Every structure is written in structure tokens, then in C-alpha cells.
């Protein structure tokens, strides 16, 4: 399926990651600056695999306290009730508002976890130089990058609740430390998706592929 297709790398060219101009690959690294926009020219994102692994692992570690620790504490008439992300979903289910329960479940639990698992799958398949379903794996990456931002939903919900219902009422809402870990998960997975270079998936098709798989 590679017949007739030339990649920029095999032609000795680099596509500028900022303005998408095709540039000649300079011999010295000092020459590798886009003549049009001035960005550094890089054949592939630098250390893409190692960096993405590091970020994915960091996100996984934060994912645990994000789900175990409470994200909000509602204090009403001296009674305190703490909610984690999951108990928030269950609360909406019990009150019969399942569309909202579904939205929160997708944004806060499903998407972050799927994103991490997809990134791990992509990383491992690239490292094993897999030729399996290259096109579908690229599509998987594209979707992952697209939906990641929606995980921020719960952070905003907590922010609005805390800002609106403040001290001085019979009822107050306090943010729990879980939300900080959760925000960290969302930001780190977003950066991880940006650091991963989908072109690595296709590099196995290059004839003399000397790309360092590490």
C-alpha cells in the first residue's frame, strides 16, 4: 500500500510543524529553522515516545487519588457530605437525571481512562513496529486528541459550585483535594496526546527506517 507514496522524510524534507511549509532538511541542526515562520524544524516530535510514556504514567498515578478523594464537600446545617467523582454520577442516577449522569460519567471517568489506554496501546504498537491497521490506529489517535478537552467538565462544575455557594449560608460547598488531582490528569493527558507523534505509526513502512524505537 506504500507504492507511489513519498514521505517527506524519505525525500529529505521536513514539514514545518507550525506553518506546514515543506522545507529542505539542513545538514547542520542550526539550519533547521523554518524560513517562513521561524519555528524549529523537526522531522518527528523530539523524544516523542519517551515523553509520552512519562506523561501517561504520571497521569495514571494521579488518576487514583482523583477518583478516591472527594471532589466536593457539602456542609448543610452542620452535616458534611463528601462526594467523589463516582458518587456524583450515582447521585444523578438516583435522582433520575440519567442524561447528566451519562455526560459526567463519559467526561470524567470514561474519556480520561480510555485516553490513557489508547495512548498506551499506540505507544506499545509503535515500539513493537506493528503494521496492524495503520489507518485505524491513526484515526484512534485523532479521536483521542479531539475529545480530551471535554474531561475538564468536572473541574468547571466544582469551580462554579464553589464560587456560587460560598460561606455565610446555611449551606456551603467546599472543593476537595480530589479535584486538583483530577485537573492534573486532564492537563497531563492533553499534553501527552500532543507529545505523541502519529507519524511514528507509519514509519514502519519506510524502506530504510532507522527511527530509534525507544
Amino acid at each position, binding site marked *: 500500500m506504500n507504492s507511489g507514496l513519498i514521505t517527506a522524510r524519505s525525500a529529505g524534507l521536513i514539514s514545518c510543524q507550525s506553518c506546514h511549509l515543506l522545507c529542505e532538511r539542513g545538514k547542520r541542526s542550526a539550519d533547521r529553522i523554518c524560513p517562513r515562520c521561524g519555528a524549529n524544524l523537526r522531522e518527528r516530535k523530539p523524544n516523542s515516545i519517551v515523553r509520552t510514556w512519562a506523561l501517561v504514567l504520571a497521569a495514571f498515578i494521579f488518576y487514583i487519588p482523583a477518583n478516591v478523594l472527594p471532589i466536593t464537600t457539602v456542609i448543610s446545617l452542620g452535616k458534611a457530605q463528601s462526594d467523589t467523582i463516582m458518587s456524583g454520577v450515582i447521585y444523578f442516577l438516583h435522582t433520575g437525571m440519567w442524561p447528566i449522569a451519562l455526560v459526567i460519567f463519559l467526561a470524567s471517568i470514561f474519556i480520561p481512562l480510555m485516553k490513557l489506554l489508547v495512548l498506551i496501546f499506540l505507544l506499545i504498537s509503535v515500539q513493537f513496529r506493528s503494521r496492524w491497521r495503520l489507518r485505524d490506529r*491513526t484515526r484512534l489517535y485523532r479521536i483521542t486528541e479531539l475529545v480530551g478537552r471535554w474531561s475538564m*467538565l*468536572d*473541574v468547571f462544575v466544582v469551580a462554579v459550585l*464553589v*464560587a456560587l455557594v*460560598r460561606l455565610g449560608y446555611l449551606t456551603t460547598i467546599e472543593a476537595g483535594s480530589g*479535584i486538583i488531582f483530577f485537573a492534573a490528569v486532564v492537563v497531563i493527558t492533553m499534553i501527552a496526546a500532543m507529545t505523541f507523534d*502519529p507519524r511514528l505509526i507509519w514509519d514502519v513502512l519506510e524502506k530504510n527506517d532507522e527511527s530509534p524505537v525507544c
Partner: protein
Amino acid sequence: MDTFIACHECDVIHHIKTLPSKGTAHCIRCGAVLYKHKTNSLERTLAFTLAGLILFVLANSFPFLGLKIGAQVRETTLITGIHELYVQGMQIIAVLVLITTMLAPLLQMMCLVYVLLPLKFGRLPKMLPRVMRFLEHVLPWSMMEVFMIGILVSVVKLAGMAKIIPGISLYSFLALIFVLAAMIVSLDSHLIWQKWEKAS
């Protein structure tokens, strides 16, 4: 080499062709969107950006939600809400909300005005390359639409506890989300770079 483009997702080189109206060029190997034909990209994007700036000012000058408990009414604007978070020891979250709902959208619109307004009148903004590169980094962090859904969910959550009064700025927010989305859709960065290249 400006008649060729490499796919940003699989590196295959393609010849750039003129597209029919509303046409989209996909990569033949991986299917990624390479470029699109956009009618009047410059004017449309500029119009949406200016509309967005006006809505942004409106959205931030009025309270977006009011909360009525008993006889007490509390109103919150976006910035006082962020300040409230900061005071309550949630500094990290406050900064995150500040960046994603105020700074990033504002910077994104300001960058576009800086680039598009002079281009529209046939002039060349001096810092265009640097501003365009900066814009690429800002875009993913502008999350107005997610924030809007966040407001909706919190309103439902509070509905049993207190009476919620939607403020003027809530409607401006709602309009702003659509305007920002339209702005990004009509933006054609290839066109901007072409203009820059021709002029310099």
C-alpha cells in the same frame, strides 16, 4: 516547495490542488484533513473575531448566575468566581479556570485581530509569524464550550437547593461559544501564510 504539503499525521507528500467550493483535501494514506476550501476566510474570520471580542466584554461585565436562597440573592461574575476559588485555597484550579475560560479565548481573539485586520487592508503585521505560532499553542487551551456545559450541570445540581437566576452574561457566553466555533472553522491559516510569503 510551496506547491506541496506533507500530511501532518503520516508524512506523505501531496501536491496542493485548488479545491472546489467547500471542498476538503484528505490525505490519501491516513485520511487526515490536509486543507479545506473556505469562502472569504479572511473577512469571515475577522467578523467573527470582532463579534467575539464584544461578546467577551459583555460576558465578563455582568453576573452570569444569581443564586437566591430565602431572601438573599448572590450574583457571581466570572472573575469574582475565580477570585473566590483563589481565596478558598484552590489556587491551582483558579489559575486553570482563568487560563481556559478567560486568557486563552481572549488571547486567541487578540492574536487574530492583530493578524487579520492589517491583512484585510493590504498591510503586513510585522510580528505575524511569531503571533501565528503563539496562536497554535493557545488554541487547545480555550475551553469555553466545556465551561458552558459545566455551568449547566452545576445549575441542575443546585436546582433543588436554591433558585437560580440566569444573568445577562450567561446569554453572552452562549452566543460567544458559537461565535468562537465559527471563527475557528472559518480560519484558513494556509491562506494567511500564503499572503505573508507573497508580500515578503
